[in-house]
């Protein structure tokens, strides 16, 4: 018999309680896994889509908390383009818009003479022509969710638009976007001459020193703007920081709940097994061995609950990402780092949750414990 058999048998003695405890831990870990994945998923969706468009730096208002509320003159783009090291600049107006009061999509406006518009790839149809102000391009996932195809009409703010093309682009934000001409979106959103930010391509993006120098020069030339490299944008965005903080604080609460579940189960188990622990002590088990047995019980509960919770959390996060309300906003990837975080959370649950019960078990006086038969 291996030593681990003993804590497994002890847990097996109360199958209902053990199952409920594992379920409790699984719920805590599933919440942790899903919340953290969702908070990271928003950032992934954003940075992934920017990278797919070939954007290296994004410029927006220094004091804007949220990109969607930023407001910059669209003429600034030409000035930014004059900074040495900058290859292209594309002004972009972005907003969330309800389509036919049912689907919330990201509406994006680009000027037809800028690189974003020119390079946007379509899987079906064509881009709206020079004079066509009522044509839009719909991302394939949004088109699918809305059941729309080219030449279908959609209503935005009571104005009718025609779907001229369907785009299929890497990055879930891109794939879910509704693209139209900048001037059309400015008019629709009542923001004439304004953009929310500028996408900047560098001449030497792979040269870190050059990129850092251009970024510094841009900051000096335009002190009211903030310039973020693509990989930094999600990290530095205050709304995403708030979202991450909320996800982590909820996760901590979930983990504490899991901890209490383990602690309660093992504390009850130790009280019930006072006599057995007395027998183990009487047959020569040292305090360290008794401590190991109780802590192993905690770790087994936590590992089993965490394995289940991790799988459930992954499934839950993917389910959320597939929901119509979240389509395009979430890109769920599970990384080794996340799995390590879950493993650490499980170890913490098992060890911290079993410390007090184990300490109680060790403190039992064998003679007194043997009287509990």
């Amino acid at each position, binding site marked *: *018999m*291996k*030593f681990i*058999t*003993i804590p497994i*048998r*002890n847990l*097996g*003695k109360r199958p209902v309680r053990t199952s409920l405890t594992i379920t409790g831990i699984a719920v805590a870990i599933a919440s942790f896994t899903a919340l953290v994945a969702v908070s990271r998923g928003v950032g992934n969706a954003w940075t992934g889509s920017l990278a797919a468009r070939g954007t290296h730096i994004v410029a927006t208002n220094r004091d804007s908390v949220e990109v969607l509320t930023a407001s910059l003159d669209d003429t600034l783009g030409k000035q930014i383009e004059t900074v040495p090291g900058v290859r292209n600049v594309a002004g972009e107006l972005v907003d969330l818009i309800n389509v036919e009061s049912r689907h919330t999509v990201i509406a994006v406006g680009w000027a037809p003479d800028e690189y974003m518009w020119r390079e946007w790839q379509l899987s079906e149809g064509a881009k709206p022509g020079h004079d066509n102000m009522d044509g839009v391009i719909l991302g394939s996932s949004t088109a699918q969710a809305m059941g729309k195809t080219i030449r279908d009409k959609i209503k935005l703010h009571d104005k009718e638009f025609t779907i001229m093309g369907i785009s299929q682009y890497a990055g879930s934000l891109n794939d879910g976007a509704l693209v139209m001409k900048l001037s059309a979106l400015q008019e629709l959103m009542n923001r004439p001459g304004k953009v929310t930010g500028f996408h900047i391509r560098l001449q030497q993006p792979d040269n870190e020193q050059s990129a850092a120098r251009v970024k510094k020069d841009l900051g000096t030339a335009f002190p009211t703007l903030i310039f973020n490299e693509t990989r930094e944008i999600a990290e530095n965005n205050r709304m995403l920081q708030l979202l991450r903080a909320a996800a982590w604080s909820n996760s901590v609460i979930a983990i504490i709940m899991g901890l209490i579940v383990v602690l309660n189960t093992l504390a009850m188990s130790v009280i019930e097994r006072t*006599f*057995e622990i007395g*027998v*183990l*002590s*009487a*047959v*020569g*088990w*040292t*305090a360290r*061995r008794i401590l190991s047995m109780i802590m192993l019980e905690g770790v087994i509960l936590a590992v089993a609950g965490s394995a289940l919770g991790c799988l459930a959390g992954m499934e839950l996060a993917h389910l959320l990402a597939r929901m119509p309300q979240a389509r395009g906003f979430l890109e769920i990837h599970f990384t080794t780092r996340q799995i390590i975080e879950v493993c650490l959370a499980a170890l913490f649950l098992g060890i911290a949750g079993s410390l007090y019960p184990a300490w109680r078990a060790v403190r039992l006086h*064998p*003679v007194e414990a*043997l009287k509990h*038969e």
Partner: protein
Amino acid sequence: MVQPLIEIRDAVRNYDEGRITALRGVNLTINAVESVSILGPSGSGKTTLLNLMSGLDRPTGGSVFFEGREIKTVRQWMGIRARRIGYVFQAFNLMPVMSAAENIEIPMFGVIRGTRTRARRVSELLDLVGLSARAAHRPAKLSGGERQRVAIARALANSPGLILADEPTGNLDSQNAIMIMELLKNIHHAQKTTLVIVTHNTEVAACCERLVSIVDGLIVGDAQNPDAR
């Protein structure tokens, strides 16, 4: 001069903040390879005395020595006890969720390394107590006599030099009681272990070579028993 295995000097044990006195200045020496029965009525302090000998309990006053060292000063006493002392309880005290073989193996953790080595030792002990065929049975599926034989095998797990038995036949019918006493005597003779049995049964006590009588926490008699059966 041979050093005694256990020496108890002026041992006093009070409970309940001194309101109850279980032992009132007991002096007792037990030498290696002796078989000693401590005979006394219920409440006379015999189990308390046994608990002091095993180091499971500490005296309120006086001292208990094991192989010349005072138990309370010995570091790692629990580890030493696991190797040197086997304990047999009146109520068997087997783990209900474990088989007979697994119950016997429990004291070996931390003493005998390796699953296979432990399994071999368990097998030897099951043979010794005649329960090889019942190895996989849990205590609930064993008779009272079989459970006590498992408990004896468990006490022998680490080949201790001293076996302390607290009313080992107290929960058994007369036939099983005789069988258990025969087993303990055989182990004592064959393995040269020291055997200390606490009992209120004169017939059980008569199986040992030395009879110690205890009444109201005091030793009132200590004599050799030439008629040990």
